C-alpha cells in the first residue's frame, strides 16, 4: 500500500509541475464556492469543520441603522439598481432587493461583506474600480456612494419584510384557480322555465343580476347547422336540415346529438382541438442534413387521439396515458402511442434542455393551464411557481429516455409482409451493430483519456454547451462526455460517494482561498471514517496535499488512468479466451480487492460516465465524434425511411421510459446550463396540488417520477386539470372560454366570467367519470347554447346589452364564429360531394401540385418547417408551440385564397357538374338545365335553405349577365400556345460546334399534347419521369425533352391571324455534365390544322416545314432573334427540344417572345390579343377547362359567402 502511495505521490508532483504550464483556475468552482447550498452540502460531508468560517459579522439591526438604510440607501437601490437586479430581472444572477440576496451575490460572488465595504464587490463596482462598473450608464454621485459604503461598514442593516415565501403561500391560498374544486349550489332564478339544465341556472342568474334577458331560441335550421359544425366541423346535408325542421317532436335533437357524437367526424373534429394543445406536427422541425426530418410515429399518435375521442376515453385516463403509458400498459399496447404527446415536439437540433423545456410547457400549459416556462430563468413573476419547481419537472424528463416500440396493429394498416419485416430487421441489425461498436469505442476512448476528462472539470467553461456545435474528431475530448462526468460527480456528491468526498470537499473552496483553507479542509477529511472516504484517496491526499484544485483534478485523473491501465492488463488476460460482450466485460471483476474494484467501477460500471447508454440517437448523438455521429444517423435513417414508406405497417411509436440510472436535476441559473445550482428533487407544482404546503405529498417518488406526475395531474383533487379541460370544451362551443386564457389560469388570467359554473362543470366532469361526451351533451342541450344571435334581440334590448356587456361575457346571445381553416376546407369537400371519409392513416400533402386530396384537412401532413402560408393566413395553430387558442383574424390573403386558389374553383366546378347531371337525369332530357334551377339547388346545398325572392333575383341577374368569351383569359396571349411532344426527323447534322447557328435541319413528324398538368408543369403523369412519356416536361421557364427523338418537347405557338412577327429567343442549359440539348424552331406553313391542340393529336406534318434555327445548347446561354417572319392564321411555330445524343442532365430554360410587327388584322386584335405580344413564360397556363362559367362562379360566391363561413 505504501508503495502505491509513493507512486501516486510522484504522479501528483509530476502533475503539479505540468499544471504550472496550464492555466487552470475555474470559474465554475468559484460559483460553487459561493453558493450557500453547496456550502451546506460541504458541511454535510465533512462535519462541523466549516462552521465559524463566515468572514463577516452580522450587522446590528437597530432602528437607527434601519432608518439610515431607508432614507439613504434603499432609494438608491430602487432608483438605480433594481430595474436590472430586482424581482423581475436579475442580471448576473444578482438581486439588489434584500440583504440575503446581496450576501448571496451573483455570478461573481457575494456583493457585499457587511462591515467591509472596501472588500465588497458592490462598492468596487459603484466606484468603477474594476471590470464591473455599475450602474452601467451613469455613475452614482459621490454622496450616494458614500452612503452605501457607510451602510455596509455599519453592518448593512435591512429591515425584516414579509418574505417571498409568505407572499407565495398567500397566493396559493387565495387565487381562485388553486382552490379545491367544489360543487356549488345551483342558483335560483326568476324564470325557471328557461332552465333546461344547471348551466342555464348559472347563466340566467348572472344575467338577471344585470337585468339582461337571454336571446330567443334559435330557429331549427340554425340549431341543426350549429350542432353539425360544432360537433363535427362539417355542414349538415340539405336533406338533414329539412328533415330536422319538419320534425319538431321532442327527442329529435337528442337523437341527432347522439348520432353526431357517435360519428367518426366528431372524433376527428375534436381530436384536432387536442392536436393544437399537443403542438402536433409530422416533422421534427429543422434538423441537420444527417437526420430524417419526419417523425415515424406522428400519425399513429394523431389517430390514437382521434380514437380516444371516438371511444370517449375518460379524460383522466387520456392524460395519464399520454404521460406514462409505459407504466400503465403492457409493451405492445396500442395505447403506447399516447406518449406522442411528449415525443412529438420540435427537436431543437437535439439540444436537450430545449426539448425538455418544450415538454414541460406542453404538460403544464396543455394539461394544467399553468405557464411554468417562465420559471426556467427566474421565479415566475406573477404566479407562485419557482425556478426550483421548474427544475423539479425538468428532472422528470431528464430521467425519461425515448424508446422505439412496436405496437399492435391499429387496424387500418396493411398486413405485415414477411419481406417488409425482413428488410426492416436487416436495417435494424446494421444499425444495432454499428451502435454497439460506436458505444464501445467511445467508452474506451474516454477511459483512455480519463485524466484529461477529470482535468477538464477544472476548466469546464472551455467545453461548449449543447447548441454550440463543433466538428469533433476522434482526438478531441467530447464536450458532452465532459459534462457527463460532471453529472456523475454531482450524483456522487449527492450520494456522499466515498470515492469523491475529497474531490467535493476541495471543490467547495473558493479558488482564491485554496491555500488558506486547504489544510483545514484536509483536517476534517482526515477524520472521516473509512466508510465515508475511500482508503486510496485518504492515503494519497495525506501524502500529497494539493496546492490548488487543479492538483486535485490531476491526482484523480492520474489515479483513474492508472486504474484503467491495470484493468486493461487484467482484462487482456481474461478476454484472451472469450470474446465477451461489453456488459460482461463491465460486470466481471478485474481486481481482487473490493476497494480497487470500487474504483474500477467509476470507469466500467453501468452508471459510469464512460458507459455510453444504449438509447436512441436523439439522446446520445452528442456523445460521439462527428464522423461516427453521421454514420450512425445514416443507418438510423435507413430504418426510419423504411418505416415511413406509405405501405409500411403502422406499428411503431416513440414513447418514453424511465432511465436506468437517475440523473440529478440541478437548477440552471438564469436558464443557463453553464451555471448549475442546487439539486432539486422531482416534485409536483405546489400551485397544481391540493398539498401546496406538503413537500412529501408532492414528491414524485421513484424513477423519473413521470407516473406519479401523471397521477397527480389526472386526479380529481387536482385543482386545475378538470377546470382547464371544461373550459377548453366550453370555448369550442361558445367561441370564448369562461376563462379567456385557456392555457393560463394563473394570476394574470381574468377571473372566470362564471366562476361557479366553471366549478360546477368541472365537478360534473369528474362525477361523470371524466366523460367528455357527457359534457358536450349537457352543453348543447342547454338553453344557453340554443340561443339565437344578437340580431334576434329587440333593438332596445340590444342597446342595453351592448352598453353593459358589449363583449357578451354574460352570454345574452350566441355569438357566431368563423370556420377554422379545416372546417372551411372540409365543408367545401362535403358540399361538392367529394369528401373522402377514410378514417386515420398516413398524412398526405395538403396542396400537391396536381389536384387536391379529398381527405379531411386534419390528415394533411404538417411540416413545422414549412407550414403552408395559406394555413398561417387562416390562423392555423402554430405547431411549434402549444397553441391555447387560434386567433380569428381577417386579412386579404384569405380572400385571395377564396377567390383564386384552384381548390375553391374546382369544388365549385365539381358541385355544378354534379347538380347538372342529377337534374338532367331527373328531367330525362338532353337539353341544358335552366340556370335558375341549378342556382336554387346550389343555394340549398351550400346554405341548407331556400333563397329568398331577392336572393334569387340577385343570383339570376348574375347568371344571366353575358359571360365574357371563355377563351378570353387573363393573359390574352395564352390561347396561342399549346404544349406537346413529338417525333423528329433530323437531317444535315452538320458541324455542331457550340456556337454554330444551324447545325441541323429538323422536321416535326408528329405532335401530341402532353396529357397531364401538375399546376405548374405539363408532363406525362403526376410522377416524373412518367412510365410512358419519360422525362418530357414543359414549364413556364423551359422544360425537359423526352427520352428519345420520338419524344422531343414541343411548345407550339399558333398564329391567330395573318401578320408579320418578330421573335426573340433565349435558351439556356446550365450544366456541364451530359452533352446538352438541341433547340430548334420550326415554322410550318400551309399545314391544314386548327389551333385546337386536342384535335391535332398525332398529326404528321405533311405541309412544308422550315427549320428557322437549330442549335446545340450545352452549359451556355444561346440567344437568337428574327425580326420579320410573315405568318398566316393557323400556321405554327414549334419550339422543339431534343436530348441531342445523350439523355443526361437535359433540363433547359427557354424564353420566347413573339411580337407582332405590323398592324395585322385590326378586328382580331381587339377581341383576343390587343397587345400583339406573346410571351412563353407569362402566357404559360394549364388546361383551359379551369375557367369557371357563370354557374360555377355563383357556386364559388356562395361557398365563400359570410353565411357559409360564419356559423350562427
Amino acid at each position, binding site marked *: 500500500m505504501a508503495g502505491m502511495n509513493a507512486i501516486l505521490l510522484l504522479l501528483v508532483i509530476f502533475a503539479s509541475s505540468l499544471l504550472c504550464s496550464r492555466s487552470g483556475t475555474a470559474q465554475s468552482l468559484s460559483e460553487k464556492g459561493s453558493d450557500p447550498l453547496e456550502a451546506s452540502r460541504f458541511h454535510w460531508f465533512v462535519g462541523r469543520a466549516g462552521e465559524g468560517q463566515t468572514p463577516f459579522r452580522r450587522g446590528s439591526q437597530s432602528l437607527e441603522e434601519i432608518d439610515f438604510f431607508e432614507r439613504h440607501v434603499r432609494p438608491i437601490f430602487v432608483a438605480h439598481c433594481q430595474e436590472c437586479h430586482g424581482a423581475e430581472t436579475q442580471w448576473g444572477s444578482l438581486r439588489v432587493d434584500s440583504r440575503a440576496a446581496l450576501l448571496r451575490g451573483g455570478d461573481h460572488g457575494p456583493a457585499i461583506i457587511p462591515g467591509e465595504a472596501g472588500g465588497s464587490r458592490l462598492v468596487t463596482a459603484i466606484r468603477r474600480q474594476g471590470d464591473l462598473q455599475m450602474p452601467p450608464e451613469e455613475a452614482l454621485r459621490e454622496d450616494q456612494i458614500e452612503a452605501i459604503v457607510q451602510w455596509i461598514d455599519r453592518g448593512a442593516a435591512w429591515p425584516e419584510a414579509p418574505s417571498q415565501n409568505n407572499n407565495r403561500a398567500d397566493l396559493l391560498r387565495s387565487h381562485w384557480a388553486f382552490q379545491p374544486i367544489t360543487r356549488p349550489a345551483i342558483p335560483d332564478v326568476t324564470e325557471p322555465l328557461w332552465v333546461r339544465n344547471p348551466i342555464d341556472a348559472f347563466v340566467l342568474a348572472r344575467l338577471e343580476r344585470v337585468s339582461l334577458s337571454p336571446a330567443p331560441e334559435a330557429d331549427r335550421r340554425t340549431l341543426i347547422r350549429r350542432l353539425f359544425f360544432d360537433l363535427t366541423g362539417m355542414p349538415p346535408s340539405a336533406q338533414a336540415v329539412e328533415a330536422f325542421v319538419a320534425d319538431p317532436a321532442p327527442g329529435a335533437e337528442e337523437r341527432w346529438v347522439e348520432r353526431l357524437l357517435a360519428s367518426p367526424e366528431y372524433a376527428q373534429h375534436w381530436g384536432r382541438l387536442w392536436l393544437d394543445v399537443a403542438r402536433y406536427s409530422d416533422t421534427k422541425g429543422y434538423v441537420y442534413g444527417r437526420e430524417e426530418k419526419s417523425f415515424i410515429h406522428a400519425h399513429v399518435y394523431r389517430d390514437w387521439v382521434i380514437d380516444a375521442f371516438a371511444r370517449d376515453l375518460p379524460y383522466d385516463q387520456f392524460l395519464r396515458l399520454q404521460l406514462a403509458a409505459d407504466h400503465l400498459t403492457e409493451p405492445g399496447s396500442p395505447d403506447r402511442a399516447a406518449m406522442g404527446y411528449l415525443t412529438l415536439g420540435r427537436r431543437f437540433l437535439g439540444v436537450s434542455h430545449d426539448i425538455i423545456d418544450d415538454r414541460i410547457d406542453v404538460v403544464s400549459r396543455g394539461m394544467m393551464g399553468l405557464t411554468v416556462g417562465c420559471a426556467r430563468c427566474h421565479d415566475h413573476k406573477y404566479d407562485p411557481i419557482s425556478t426550483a419547481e421548474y427544475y423539479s419537472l425538468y428532472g422528470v424528463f431528464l430521467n425519461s429516455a425515448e424508446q422505439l416500440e412496436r405496437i399492435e396493429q391499429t387496424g387500418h394498416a396493411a398486413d405485415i409482409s414477411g419481406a417488409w419485416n425482413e428488410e426492416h430487421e436487416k436495417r435494424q441489425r446494421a444499425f444495432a451493430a454499428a451502435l454497439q461498436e460506436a458505444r464501445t469505442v467511445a467508452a474506451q476512448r474516454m477511459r483512455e483519456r480519463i485524466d484529461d476528462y477529470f482535468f477538464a472539470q477544472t476548466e469546464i467553461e472551455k467545453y461548449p454547451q449543447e447548441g454550440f456545435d463543433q466538428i469533433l474528431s476522434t482526438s478531441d475530448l467530447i464536450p458532452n462526455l465532459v459534462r457527463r462526468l460532471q453529472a456523475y460527480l454531482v450524483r456522487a456528491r449527492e450520494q456522499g460517494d466515498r470515492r469523491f468526498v475529497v474531490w467535493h470537499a476541495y471543490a467547495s473552496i473558493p479558488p482564491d482561498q485554496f491555500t488558506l483553507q486547504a489544510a483545514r479542509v484536509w483536517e476534517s477529511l482526515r477524520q472521516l471514517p473509512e466508510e465515508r472516504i475511500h482508503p486510496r484517496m485518504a492515503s494519497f491526499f495525506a501524502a500529497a496535499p494539493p496546492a490548488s484544485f487543479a492538483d486535485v483534478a490531476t491526482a484523480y485523473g492520474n489515479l483513474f488512468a492508472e486504474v484503467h491501465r491495470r484493468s486493461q492488463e487484467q482484462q487482456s488476460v481474461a478476454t484472451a479466451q472469450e470474446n465477451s460482450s461489453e456488459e460482461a466485460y463491465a460486470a466481471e471483476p478485474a481486481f481482487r480487492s473490493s476497494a480497487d474494484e470500487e474504483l474500477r467501477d467509476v470507469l466500467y460500471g453501468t452508471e459510469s460516465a464512460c458507459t455510453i447508454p444504449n438509447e436512441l440517437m436523439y439522446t446520445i448523438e452528442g456523445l460521439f465524434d462527428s464522423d461516427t455521429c453521421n454514420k450512425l444517423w445514416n443507418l438510423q435513417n435507413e430504418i426510419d425511411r423504411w418505416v415511413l414508406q406509405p405501405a409500411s405497417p403502422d406499428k411503431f411509436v416513440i414513447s418514453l421510459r424511465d432511465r436506468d440510472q437517475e440523473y440529478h436535476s440541478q437548477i440552471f441559473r438564469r436558464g443557463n446550463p453553464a451555471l448549475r445550482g442546487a439539486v432539486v428533487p422531482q416534485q409536483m407544482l405546489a400551485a397544481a396540488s391540493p398539498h401546496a404546503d406538503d413537500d412529501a405529498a408532492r414528491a414524485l417518488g421513484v424513477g423519473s417520477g413521470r407516473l406519479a406526475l401523471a397521477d397527480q395531474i389526472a386526479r380529481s383533487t387536482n385543482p386545475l386539470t378538470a377546470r382547464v379541460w371544461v373550459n377548453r370544451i366550453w370555448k369550442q362551443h361558445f367561441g370564448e372560454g369562461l376563462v379567456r386564457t385557456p392555457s393560463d389560469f394563473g394570476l394574470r388570467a381574468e377571473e372566470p366570467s362564471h366562476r361557479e359554473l366553471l366549478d360546477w362543470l368541472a365537478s360534473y366532469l369528474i362525477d361523470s367519470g371524466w366523460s367528455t361526451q357527457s359534457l358536450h351533451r349537457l352543453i348543447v342541450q342547454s338553453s344557453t347554447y340554443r340561443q339565437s344571435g344578437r340580431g334576434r334581440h329587440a333593438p332596445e334590448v340590444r342597446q342595453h346589452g351592448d352598453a353593459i356587456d358589449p363583449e357578451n361575457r354574460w352570454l345574452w346571445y350566441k355569438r357566431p*364564429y368563423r370556420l377554422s381553416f379545416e372546417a372551411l376546407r372540409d365543408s367545401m369537400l362535403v358540399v361538392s360531394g367529394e369528401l373522402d371519409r377514410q378514417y386515420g392513416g398516413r398524412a398526405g400533402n395538403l396542396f400537391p401540385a396536381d389536384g387536391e386530396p379529398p381527405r379531411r384537412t386534419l390528415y394533411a401532413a404538417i411540416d413545422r418547417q414549412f407550414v403552408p402560408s395559406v394555413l398561417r393566413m387562416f390562423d392555423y395553430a402554430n405547431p411549434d408551440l402549444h397553441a391555447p387558442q387560434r*386567433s*380569428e383574424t381577417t386579412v386579404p390573403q384569405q380572400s385571395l385564397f377564396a377567390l383564386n386558389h384552384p381548390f375553391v374553383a374546382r369544388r365549385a366546378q365539381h358541385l355544378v357538374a354534379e347538380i347538372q347531371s342529377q337534374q338532367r337525369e331527373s328531367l330525362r332530357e338532353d337539353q341544358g338545365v335552366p340556370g335558375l334551377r341549378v342556382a336554387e339547388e346550389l343555394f340549398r346545398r351550400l346554405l341548407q335553405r331556400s333563397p329568398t325572392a331577392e336572393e334569387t333575383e340577385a343570383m339570376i341577374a348574375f347568371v344571366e349577365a353575358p359571360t365574357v368569351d371563355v377563351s378570353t383569359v387573363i393573359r390574352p396571349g395564352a390561347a396561342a400556345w399549346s404544349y406537346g411532344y413529338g417525333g423528329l426527323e433530323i437531317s444535315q447534322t452538320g458541324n455542331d460546334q457550340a456556337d454554330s447557328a444551324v447545325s441541323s435541319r429538323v422536321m416535326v413528324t408528329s405532335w401530341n399534347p402532353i396529357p397531364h398538368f401538375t399546376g405548374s408543369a405539363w408532363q406525362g403523369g403526376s410522377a416524373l419521369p412518367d412510365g410512358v412519356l419519360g422525362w418530357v416536361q414543359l414549364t413556364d421557364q423551359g422544360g425537359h425533352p423526352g427520352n428519345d427523338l420520338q419524344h422531343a418537347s414541343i411548345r407550339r405557338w399558333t398564329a391567330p391571324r395573318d401578320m408579320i412577327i418578330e421573335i426573340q429567343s433565349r435558351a439556356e442549359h446550365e450544366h456541364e455534365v451530359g452533352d446538352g440539348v438541341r433547340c430548334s424552331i420550326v415554322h410550318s406553313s400551309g399545314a391544314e390544322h386548327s389551333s385546337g391542340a386536342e384535335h391535332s393529336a398525332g398529326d404528321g406534318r405533311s405541309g412544308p416545314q422550315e427549320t428557322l434555327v437549330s442549335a446545340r445548347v450545352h452549359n451556355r446561354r444561346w440567344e437568337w432573334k428574327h425580326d420579320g417572319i410573315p405568318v398566316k392564321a393557323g400556321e405554327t411555330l414549334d419550339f422543339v427540344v431534343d436530348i441531342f445524343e445523350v439523355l443526361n442532365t437535359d433540363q433547359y430554360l427557354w424564353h420566347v417572345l413573339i411580337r407582332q410587327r405590323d398592324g395585322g388584322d385590326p378586328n382580331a386584335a381587339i377581341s383576343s390579343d390587343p397587345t400583339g405580344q406573346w410571351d412563353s413564360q407569362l402566357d404559360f397556363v394549364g388546361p383551359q377547362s379551369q375557367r369557371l362559367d357563370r354557374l360555377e362562379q355563383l357556386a364559388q360566391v356562395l361557398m365563400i359567402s359570410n353565411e357559409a363561413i360564419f356559423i350562427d
Partner: protein
Amino acid sequence: MTQRFPSTTARRTMLQQCGLGLGGLGLASLLCDGRAQGDVAEGGGSGPLAARSPHFPARAKRIIHFFLNGGPSHVDTFDPKPLLTKYAGQPLSTTLTTERKTGAAFPSPFKFRRYGESGLEISEIFSRTAQFADDIAVVRSMHAAVPNHEPSLMLMNCGDSVQPRPSVGAWLMYGLGSENENLPGFIAMCPGGYPIKDAENWQAGFLPGAYQGTFIDPQHRELERLIENIRSGHASLSDQRKQLDLLARLNSLSASSPEDPRLESRIESFELAYRMQTEAAEAFDLSQEPQAIREAYGDHVHGRQTLIARRLLERGVRYLQLWHGAGQPWDNHAQIEANHRKLAAEIDQPIAALIQDLKQRGMFDETLILWGGEFGRTPTVELGSDGKEQLGRDHNHYGFSVWMAGGGIRGGVAYGATDEFGFKAVENPTSVHDLHATMLYLMGLDHKRLTYRYAGRDFRLTDVHGRVIHDIIA
C-alpha cells in the same frame, strides 16, 4: 399621428373593427389595455395590418436588410486588420473555440482603402458601396452566441437562438402595421429558394399569422410565382368584379348579425384582395423602370431583386429582407478570396445603386438600410480534417460587423472594435439585442414597450436585453 380613443367602448369598437375576433386575444387584449401590456398605439384604419403610430417620432419608416447569409468575413469587408499581414502564417496568441479547427493568422487577400471625408476603411470588394462611406455607420463589435448557422440566424432574425420567436419583421408589423394594405408589409426575397432554417427566419412565432413574412423568389418573373394566389386561373378580373358585387349583395341580404364588425371586415377584405391583384402586379413590373435605372442596378438577379425592393419600399412595404441566395452562399470555409470577391460583386453594385436611387427620390433619410450576416469569420485560416489549410475562414460569433445607413443613422462612423486580429469584440461589444433595440428605436418603437403577452409572459423582441446604440444615431 396618434389617435387616442376617448372611451373603452370606442376603443372596443376599434378593436372589433380590427377584424380580430375576441378569440384573437393576444393583440385584442393588448389593444384594450395598452398601458398594462406594451404600448401599441392605435392609428387610423382597420385590420391587423393597418398602419399604427409609433411610440415616438420615427427616424425611419421602413427597413431594407441585405442579409449576407452564411456569414461574411468582417476582416475582408468592413473591419481591416493589418496585423494579420504582419503575423501571416503564425499562430495567434488566443484562438477561440469555433465550429471547426483553425490555424495561423490569415491576412485578408483584399486591399482596404479610406473612403469619403470620414476616411472609413472599406475593402476593395465593396468599392462601389464605399462611395457612400460618409453615409454608413459600421458596427465592428457585434457578437452572437454560438458559431453555428442555425441558432445564429434565429438570433439575428428573431432575437432568440433556439426557441421559436417572432421575427423582427413580424414585430414591426405588429407594432406599426403596413403602410399599404394592398401589399404584404413584410417581404423576404431570396433568389433560388430558401436560406437554411427556411421560413423560420421570417416567422410570426406566437404573433398572429398575418404578421409572418411573405417569401418571394425573385428568380421567378411571373407574378403568380411571386405572390401566392395573386391571380386567378379560372376567372378574369371583370368576372371577379361581378362575383364580388354579388357576394356583397348576398352578404347584405342574409346578414343575421347586424353590426357584427367581423362580417364587415370580411367584406372589406375581399375588396382589398381584389385591388391587390392589380397593385401587386404593378409593383413587380420592372419594365416600368427607365432603362438607365435598370442598368444602374444591373441586369442580374441581385440587381432585379434590389430594384423590386425599391419599388416595394416606395409603395409602403415596412420591412424587406434581401437574402443573398438559397442555402448559405457566404459560408466560405475554403477559397475565400475567389468566393467573397464573386459574392460581393453580385451585390456591391445593387447596394450602391439603391443608395443613390433612394437619395434621388428623397427616400434615403426615411429608409434604414442594414447590411450583415448571422456572424463573421475567423481571422485564422480554416484547417481541413487532414490539417491542411483551406484558404477559408471558419464561423466567428465572437466578433463581426454589420453596417447601417439612411433613416436616422450618423454616417462615416465605425462603432466599437474587435481585438487587434479581429477575433473578438472588445470595444463597445454590441449584442444582436442591441442591434434590434436600435432598429426598433429608429422605427419609433421602444423595444421595452413593444410587448406581446404569451404563455404568461410579456415577450419582447429583445427579451430582457437590448440597449439602443445612440452613438451611431444622427
